């Protein structure tokens, strides 16, 4: 009987710790809701689309930050996706095995570098390069007919943030895409090659079509990362709470306004507003991650069924 007792105690303890994960998420949601209730009561839904940001007059609106987050993340996704899928294709279909391990390790290293180091490199290396070379190139070509590429280049701004974010999410998208490509059955490739397809036609028609939704899932997980990334963005985006006219203008994101102003928030309303922005960020990343998880989950299940 004594032995059974030990088992029951251990099982109960394990369950308690298992529940602690649920409790953590619950506490986080509750704490964010409690902290932001003052701002939510005061502004209601109009807070989301108000452009006002004047802490002195206590006028707050989240739109500049939401806009900055959306544009910088989508930009990052647009840059990172083709590169990541290219890496995944290279690693799975082209590279010899020993080379695959080396490159795989280097790409993982890219993921291990702390965000703050990306920020440091962004300020002192990337931002001058963008100011001197890359931004003028875009402004003088695309800028002549697309207004969004016009204007002066400061070096810091939405574009620089997008590039840094792209570098940071490449390992995520590349490694998930790689896994997705690896589960494509070999017979699929052989069939395409037997029909006379060239290597690229085989990759495009037999491999990429097959793993489309998995790659989409990888992109969405990458998007979730980009939305929540804080330090590197804070250091290169320029931190100006306005809607930028050009892609090279300084802007602000939801995460970076919290990082910059949380400790300065002098009034309860100011603090509560920042917490509400954090709450929004939290809710959005939760939804994005849940969606991505379902997507990857249904893909992998589909693959198992296909096998």
């Amino acid at each position, binding site marked *: 009987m004594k032995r059974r007792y*030990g*088992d029951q105690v251990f099982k109960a*303890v*394990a*369950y308690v*710790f*298992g529940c*602690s*994960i*649920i409790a*953590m*998420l619950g*506490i*986080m949601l509750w*704490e*964010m809701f409690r*902290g932001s209730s003052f701002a939510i009561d005061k502004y209601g839904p109009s807070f989301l689309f108000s452009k006002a940001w004047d802490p002195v007059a206590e006028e707050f609106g989240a739109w500049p930050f939401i806009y900055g987050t959306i544009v910088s993340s989508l930009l990052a996704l647009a840059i990172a996706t083709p*590169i*990541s*899928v290219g*890496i995944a294709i*290279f690693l799975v279909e*082209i590279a010899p095995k020993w080379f695959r391990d080396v*490159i795989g390790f*280097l*790409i993982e*290293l*890219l993921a*291990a*570098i*702390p*965000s*703050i*180091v990306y*920020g*440091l*490199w962004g*300020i*002192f*290396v990337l931002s001058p390069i963008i100011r001197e070379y890359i931004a003028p190139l875009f402004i003088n070509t695309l800028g002549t007919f697309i207004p969004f590429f016009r204007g002066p280049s400061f070096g810091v701004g939405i574009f620089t943030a997008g590039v840094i974010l792209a570098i940071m999410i490449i390992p995520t998208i*590349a490694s998930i895409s790689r896994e997705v490509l690896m589960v494509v059955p070999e017979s699929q490739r052989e069939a395409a090659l037997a029909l006379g397809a*060239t290597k*690229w*036609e085989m990759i*495009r028609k037999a491999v990429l079509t097959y793993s489309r939704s998995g790659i989409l899932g990888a992109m969405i*997980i990458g998007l979730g990362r980009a*939305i*929540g*990334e*804080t*330090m590197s963005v804070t*250091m290169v985006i320029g931190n100006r709470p306005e809607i930028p006219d050009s892609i090279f203008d300084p802007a602000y994101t939801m995460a970076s306004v*919290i990082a910059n102003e949380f*400790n300065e928030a002098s009034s309860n309303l100011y603090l509560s507003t920042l*917490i509400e922005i*954090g709450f929004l960020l*939290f809710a959005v*990343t*939760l939804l994005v*991650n849940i969606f991505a998880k379902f997507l990857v989950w249904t893909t992998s299940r589909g693959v198992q069924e296909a096998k």
Partner: protein
Amino acid sequence: MESVLKSSNNVGFEKSNIRLGRRQTKSKVMVGLTILSMILALTPLFSILGYVLVKGISALNFDFFTELPAPPGEVGGGMANGIVGTFILLGLASVIGIPVGLMSGIFLSEYGRNRFGKFVSFLTDIMLGVPSIVVGIVVYGLVVLMMGGFSAYAGGVALAFIMIPAVTRTTEEMLKLVPNHMREAGLALGIPQWRVIMKIILPTALRGIITGVMLAIARVAGETAPLLFTAFGNMYWNHSLNQPIASMPVLIFNYAISPYAEWQAQAWAGALTLILMVILLNVTARVITRKR
């Protein structure tokens, strides 16, 4: 007549030959593009590592590891308090995060093979994607406001919040790799289930779990955002866990955005130290798993 047929056949053959040539050229170009994309991703990596190494080494000296930060504009000084602070914060986070993560992982692997366990596992995955700045705000509300100020405790709790899902996930995966017949063998000998788990299953998977824990520590070692308003930062030595504490990432951040050249140089030295630490943890973790 014959010659006409022949020549028209030749034309057709050449046409398809040209088309095949184009298709193969396109294929080669696309394959080349995948190589280019790999180069595009590795360039920033080498650029970052190169700059951190060159700029970091030139600012790194003995004082960096032993001295407190110097006032702005003054030459010298170091990040000794930040280095010690980072280790204290990592220690606090590990003390909270590793046992909780380990036990949740055991729950998921040994008792969680049902609907509830799947749900918890799903939530763990979702928690892995929570932005660290959000964790900072939550811990600010939970710990900083409750205890009446920024503290090492608050910083440790914030880092633990980030560690727990990561440790849980790897523990679960490593334990699930342990073959079922080992569990059955233990139970068949009449050993109670909890002792089977602690004495047989856990040690078998220990190597993988240690790897996961090290990767989790490496991940939070560079976290800055959640420390900004929990541990806050401190230019002096920390004498109590109940007061604000310096950490390398926060010092690097403050130094990097400062206008002083001396501080910016120190930020590079800090980045070098931090990156070496993180890479060391990563490589050690890899070596441990590879020996298997």
